[in-house]
């Protein structure tokens, strides 16, 4: 097993939490992913009324008395945070802790209906009564958590929560905070559904990333959070050991056709961890199921890793959909589980790999030591981000 050194300054993940269409918690998401069946209905994955009710009920039982008045975005975020803190054994947050959240649309559900109605009726009275800028939900969240430490909201499209995780780790490394909560949340909105639809990116059937006959993306909602602590921890479930970012400088919605930006962000993540490409076991791809994304990302992977003995490549969006700004965090939950369980996942729905790519896809999930998983996110605006997540045993004994 290849080893990380203290010089690469890995940060320990000591707890995590998630909410998705699969259910509340990381385990339902993992189990659904192993089953490999899409959770989409007509191409979308929104939480059921029962799941939303469970979120609120559970938060009330955990002491959040006003939980029924929370927006879906706030409830999703808060629940994942509470799960992660419980798992990490964090009783409360202090002013020495940090909080970094990634999202694309935040509380947009509170006001987008009013705007659309004003377009229907031509009556703009009160159309801004429920308007919120992006940070207002975040402020409400800090209030609910009684949190006064450093905090940051990242809004870089589908790379938002991946960047949030990397930046939280950077805060720990520079000593800005002692511990950090990092993650993301996203709700399904008319803005994103109609927007992706008009770009002809949505699939009405289950998405099949990297498949020759792919039809497009399934949008979803959800949240995931992680507790990060400095360096070595006996409670580490994994390490966040590398972080890279780049910009395509190419187009507002189309990725660079040769994957230049994705290549740079993956390379940056490996370099920051001091890991060579040959040491990566698997790449948890952004893999949305859009032709442009899959080709871009695939070409970047081929360029960095080659095609001989390259890492396994898988996407899990065929099961849980694309949760936009929350997708990096949600999928990192699965990456951590893959590290812990020693499993390389197959890509749900992939039956005939795209002939334009030569990626190493597993035909079925299989057991093997998993040391390092590279998690990619590619966002609109050409924003790329990559995280290297590493097995707890990958930290060298030397220098400790």
């Amino acid at each position: 097993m290849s080893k990380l050194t203290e010089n690469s300054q890995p940060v320990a993940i000591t707890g995590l939490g998630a909410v998705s269409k699969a259910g509340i918690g990381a385990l339902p998401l993992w189990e659904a992913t192993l089953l490999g069946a899409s959770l989409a209905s007509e191409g979308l994955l929104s939480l059921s009324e029962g799941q939303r009710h469970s979120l609120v009920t559970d938060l009330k039982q955990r002491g959040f008395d006003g939980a029924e008045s929370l927006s879906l975005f706030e409830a999703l975020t808060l629940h994942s945070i509470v799960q992660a803190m419980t798992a990490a054994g964090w009783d409360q947050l202090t002013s020495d802790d940090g909080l970094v959240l990634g999202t694309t649309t935040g509380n947009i559900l509170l006001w987008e209906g009013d705007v659309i109605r004003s377009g229907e009726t031509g009556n703009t009275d009160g159309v801004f009564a429920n308007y919120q800028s992006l940070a207002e939900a975040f402020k409400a969240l800090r209030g609910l958590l009684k949190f006064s430490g450093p905090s940051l909201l990242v809004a870089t499209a589908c790379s938002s929560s991946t960047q949030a995780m990397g930046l939280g780790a950077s805060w720990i490394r520079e000593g800005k905070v002692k511990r950090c909560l990092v993650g993301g949340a996203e709700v399904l909105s008319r803005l994103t559904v109609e927007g992706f639809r008009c770009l002809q990116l949505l699939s009405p059937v289950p998405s099949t990333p990297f498949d020759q006959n792919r039809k497009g993306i399934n949008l979803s909602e959800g949240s995931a959070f992680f507790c990060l602590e400095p360096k070595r921890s006996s409670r580490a479930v994994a390490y966040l050991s590398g972080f890279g970012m780049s910009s395509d400088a190419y187009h507002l919605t189309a990725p660079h056709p040769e994957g230049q930006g994705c290549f740079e962000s993956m390379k940056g993540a490996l370099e920051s961890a001091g890991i060579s490409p040959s040491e990566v076991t698997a790449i948890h791809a952004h893999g949305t199921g859009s032709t442009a994304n899959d080709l871009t990302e695939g070409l970047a992977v081929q360029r960095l890793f080659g095609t001989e003995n390259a890492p396994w490549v898988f996407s899990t969006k065929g099961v849980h959909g694309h949760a936009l700004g929350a997708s990096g965090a949600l999928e990192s939950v699965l990456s951590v589980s893959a590290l812990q369980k020693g499993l390389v996942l197959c890509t749900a729905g992939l039956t005939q790999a795209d002939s334009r790519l030569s990626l190493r896809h597993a035909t079925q999930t299989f057991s093997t030591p998993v040391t390092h998983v590279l998690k990619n996110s590619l966002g609109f605006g050409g924003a790329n981000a990559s995280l290297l997540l590493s097995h707890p045993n990958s930290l060298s004994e030397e220098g400790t």
Partner: protein
Amino acid sequence: MKVTCLAYGIARETSVAALATQPEFRKATRNMIYACAAVGELMGSLPNAWLEQNLSQMAVVVGTSEGELNTTFHFLKGLPSAGARPFLFQSSLHNATLGFVTQKFKLRGPGLTVSDSHQSGETALETAATLIRSGVAGHVLVLGVDGIVEGAEEEFAKRSMTAAKLSAGSAAVLLGGPDGSGLPILADFVGAPETTEPLHYGAQAVERLAEALRQS
């Protein structure tokens, strides 16, 4: 690690007006035009040789409170009558300004957008400093840009209980490491200027820093 201020740019109304008439800005949003005016001024102050060597790896952090919510508003309002319009959607997301600026100036380093109401500019400056101190980037273009949703003035004034700054604006500052990344150091960056009001204008910390650098 010491972080330094290396260059600045402030969006001038004359530059904004000139850019707005150019064909490549025909579908650009207000924020995109203001941002390009500020970045254009900053870039114009840098030596060509330095730009040739460093431009492609320059990181960008955008701080904005309202981001592209003005475009989001028009996209949503137009749904019942005009349907979903791709050119409005692609400029609706909070980071669309970042995407436009990186494309326009060919900036291929790390890029991110942060939002924290009127403190967005402060947050962007501090985030840029983190990127430099942690080695993620050697030099970072910090861009503060903002402008509220057209038509929301009354509601905003009501909430903030003070006269909100309703106009749009943008400024840019280039931060680097202790050696100045090969450029003359204008000042040490010891922290972002604090801002308190108005509630919904996130560009002001970068504007204040750029103005202080200009006056020095």
